[in-house]
């Protein structure tokens, strides 16, 4: 499992950005400190000490622009853990996110949805199994060929 965690340092990309977490301990907006960039997989930590250290991943090109993350690690070898993930390079803006958050999203909740009648195209619900699906509204919609 720890090998997996270590691998993540070079692969956290736009997903971290999209989550929009402010996880930095020391300032995600600061430029990268002089740490050696790690390109590709860092299967083993490069220091023998057990203190916290940072590693910077390669700048990943995403459809939103370049994204670069920095991780703070502690422990050694199999006991290595990620203490922090900071995004040190952001695309200038995240267009899609801004767009959807710009909606005055009209979520219509009515006591009865007009006597339980509603026009819908699809249904979102807790995970359907094949059995649960059969009795669901979604199944009815799937069969209703317009």
């Amino acid at each position, binding site marked *: 499992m720890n090998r997996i965690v270590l691998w993540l340092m070079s692969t956290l990309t736009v997903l971290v950005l999209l989550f929009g977490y402010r996880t930095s301990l020391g300032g995600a907006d600061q430029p990268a400190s002089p740490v050696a960039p790690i390109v590709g997989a860092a299967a083993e930590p490069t220091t023998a000490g057990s203190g916290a250290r940072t590693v910077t991943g390669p700048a990943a090109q995403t459809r939103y622009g370049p994204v670069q993350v920095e991780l703070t690690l502690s422990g050694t070898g199999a006991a290595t853990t990620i203490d922090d993930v900071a995004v040190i390079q952001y695309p200038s803006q995240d267009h899609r996110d801004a767009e959807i958050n710009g909606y005055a999203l009209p979520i219509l909740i009515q006591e009865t949805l007009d006597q339980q*009648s*509603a026009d819908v195209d699809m249904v979102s*619900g807790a995970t359907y199994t094949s059995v*649960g699906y059969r009795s669901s509204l979604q199944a009815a919609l*799937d069969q209703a060929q*317009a």
Partner: protein
Amino acid sequence: MTVVRVASGGTDARVVRHVAQIMGMPISLALRGRRAGTSVGAAAWEEVQASLRWSDEVFSTWRPESTISRLGRGELAVADCPPEVAEVLAIGEVARRATGGAFAVCRVVDGREVLDPSGVVKGWAVDRASAVLRDLDDTDFTLAAGGDLVCSAVLDRPAWRIGIEDPRDPSRLVAVVPVRDGAVATSGAVHRGEHVRHAVTGRAPAGVASVSVVHSSLTIADVEATCGYLQGAGATAWLRERGRTGVVVMPDGAAEVVSRR
């Protein structure tokens, strides 16, 4: 009994539907516009299914020969896996940190740590599979997998109307959300029993019936809905604190909208 009518868009907005069973769940596609009901639309649907089947082959914890199963047994290193594996694990790691460990891609079963990123994979896989649909010109789509979905609609046609299922009665709705370009995911106990459990306590959440999240990315909507549901009675406050948009349904059926504004 709810009477649900299929939303009728404009005159040229005939909805063509496709259904398949992949990853052990129903996959539903609705297309409308230029490529709906054409061979191009049908070919895109085939590609969507192929993409989801690939995700299932890589990530299914039910298949002993899947990449994720072999990784979990230590037969493979992450470096030996397709890069998508690291991507999924990274998403899970971010969610674990955001929930203080409630969400995790590893579970302890019979004293053994088991790798199970299923909580990430569904939304991620559907997001990934929907890419081919975005390339269809002048065509709108809604792609749903087991109750989570991603939508796109051009500006001159109405937004898709997404019903939020009543967690106490799958034949009813508690809300309707119009979505033009975005995703809706719902987490709750209905349909599969209490399949969402706190990774640390091992218990199913109490004090909340379902959590739906609306976001531009289904990957994020799916994980956030699960993380929100794991907060139990604190789901609404948690989503609000994180600036999310969604609907929280309480055990008594009361529904509350969480919105940034």
